[in-house]
């Protein structure tokens, strides 16, 4: 018997249990929620995909990814462009281009006519952008707040760029009015339910991927880079490479979230990709507990849900509530709500066993609330 597997076991069982519970809850949701609420939950799940990636890059890798709106937007806009072209039919021109543009489809839109190319580009474009940007930034040892500011600036610039290109990106209105998703009519509730199930499945796969990465040697290395970057360098690794991998994974997850967000919500606009949503992604992760596996997901879902329900009653109240909650969590619960379990009295076990699963209980409660909404 080797000691590590013996030690991993309890955390693993708990993670598997939490994973199973999450799966059951997600599968039950269509049965108990109205189509409207189910749609809302699907939207939350798409936003939570961004959070899963941030949990890896920020929670494990210490990269303060304050500009994930860029990748969310890249995925979202690429998907929206494809849906627009598909709606227009072979050789057709999307409606808004006839209205505001030249009535011609720009050359860089053309590749997105093919569904396969669209899916490929949704994965590839954010990966390449994040890879190049990450490489440029991390090899120059830009870290911490500087990296965060850079990410923010990028998100702002991206939103401004989109607004300025009314003829080809829809400008402030963004892209909307999609009729079908890969041939399936989006007005049909059965198809919306299918979309929800796709989002749930993709989210679960992403959680599994992050879990696998975290438990791998790469995951250990990522923590080492976060805590002692120079030491890692003296062991013969290039920390920039390690960070780039985490950053690219987070970017692709954000892009997939954005891509699924488009058919679920029916619109993507610069307001979904700029500075404010970028910070919003991070807040959910911070509140849930960035260093845990499920904390980011549950925190993100909880924040989205709270945002929706509070905005329904007090249209302008949300922003204050979010700010207050964020300050409270940062000041008093740096580990996020997931760390509440650590504060509760509990049976003493070997310290090493407390890891991994810490985020599950309170978060599950939050998720249940989210489902009830």
């Amino acid at each position, binding site marked *: 018997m080797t*000691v590590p597997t013996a030690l991993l076991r309890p955390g693993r069982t708990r993670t598997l249990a939490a994973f199973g519970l999450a799966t059951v809850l997600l599968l039950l949701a269509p049965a108990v929620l109205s189509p409207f609420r189910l749609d809302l939950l699907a939207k939350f799940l798409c936003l939570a995909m961004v959070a899963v990636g941030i949990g890896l890059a920020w929670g494990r890798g210490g990269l303060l990814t304050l500009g994930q709106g860029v990748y969310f937007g890249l995925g979202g806009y690429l998907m929206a462009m494809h849906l627009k072209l598909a709606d227009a039919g072979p050789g057709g021109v999307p409606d808004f281009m006839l209205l505001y543009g030249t009535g011609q489809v720009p050359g860089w839109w053309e590749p997105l006519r093919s569904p396969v190319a669209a899916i490929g580009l949704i994965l590839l474009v954010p990966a390449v952008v994040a890879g190049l940007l990450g490489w440029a930034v991390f090899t120059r040892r830009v870290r911490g707040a500087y990296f965060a500011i850079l990410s923010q600036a990028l998100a702002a610039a991206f939103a401004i760029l989109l607004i300025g290109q009314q003829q080809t990106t829809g400008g402030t209105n963004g892209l909307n009015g999609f009729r079908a998703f890969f041939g399936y009519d989006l007005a049909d509730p059965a198809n919306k339910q299918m979309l929800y199930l796709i989002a749930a499945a993709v989210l679960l796969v992403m959680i599994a991927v992050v879990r696998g990465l975290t438990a*791998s040697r790469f995951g*250990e290395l990522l923590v080492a880079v976060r805590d002692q970057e120079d030491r890692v360098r*003296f062991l*013969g690794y290039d920390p920039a490479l390690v960070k780039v991998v985490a950053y690219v994974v987070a970017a692709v997850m954000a892009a997939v979230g954005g891509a699924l967000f488009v058919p679920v919500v029916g619109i993507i606009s610069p307001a979904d990709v700029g500075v404010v949503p970028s910070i919003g992604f991070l807040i959910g992760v911070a509140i849930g507990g960035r260093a845990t596996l499920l904390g980011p997901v549950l925190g993100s879902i909880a924040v989205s849900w709270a945002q929706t329900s509070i905005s329904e009653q007090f249209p302008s109240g949300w922003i204050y509530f979010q700010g207050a909650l964020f300050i409270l969590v940062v000041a008093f619960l740096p580990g996020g709500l997931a760390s509440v379990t650590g504060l509760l009295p509990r049976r003493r076990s070997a310290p090493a066993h407390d890891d991994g699963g810490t985020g599950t209980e309170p978060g599950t409660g939050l998720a249940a609330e989210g489902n009830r909404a």
Partner: protein
Amino acid sequence: MTDTPSTGQRAELARPHAAPEKRGTPDDRPGTPAAGPAPRATPPGLAGADALLGTDTTRFRHDYLEVRGLRVEFDGFVAVRDVDLTVTQGDLRFLIGPNGAGKTTLIDAVTGLVRATGSAAFGGSELLGRTTHRIARAGVGRTFQTASVFEELTVLQNLDIAAGARRRPLTLLRRRTTTPPAVEQALETVGLTAQRDLPAGVLAHGQKQWLEIGMLLVQDAHLLLLDEPVAGMTQAEREETGQLLRRIGSQRVVVVVEHDMEFLRSFADSVTVMHQGRVLAEGTVAEVQNDPAVVEVYLGTPAEPAGDVPAGTVPAGTVPADAAPADAAPADAATREGEPR
């Protein structure tokens, strides 16, 4: 992540690996850091070292560190100047000097942490101008004045990372299923087998330094630069560390920065003395101890700003036994490297 345990818990966790209580006699080799309940025939520590280092003394005969005309400047302040240094395998070299002499800066320059001019070659290949991780891959390993291990990771994970710089990407993306043999041997060598699954952050200071030495071993460094490796260790722990360094020194090129003169007298093969960025003297322990220039520096003449030795506490003509206690390093020197604590 989990919070760091309270100090009480820390002390408790550190206890299992208590140092041997009585000092070993000269012929009773005290290299038994992992001493279990029953005494063993061979000191496990050095046996593990044998397995890691191999016994082939010819293979790396040509590895040697050759520093020529090294110069490091910080905004006009010259921290290291005109340093020539040659260290060969089998010659356990100690590098001493008052606080601020430039010892750490010299190591920083050789490992690519600070920019330097001149030349520093190991095994015939130039190190200056290469990036730190490339220098590490060329077989150069170092430790820091303040132990810097990955505190949130376990002892085993620390060693496994140190062993893995040459792993392929696909291996990295998989979970560790077995402990690599080198890691197993290093655990034994540095006596941390019982602590393998503890987070490195809860280790006692001396254990952290052992872990660092273990990391250098599994990293397969052929040039080891150790910055005050026995600072904060008990006498018995120093003795064990010294034995281990001797063992490593017979197979690798080792440079040890140390303030503890007793430790130096027991284990150094040769000594280089630095002062104000220059090499002041070089030779055997006896030679440098009787060098008038060295004596002057260590007795604290008016020209010596560090003043780390109260004059008159040591007999003239010898280097004081504890010229500068290891923990007497100025606060700025400890914090400058940007490490916690």
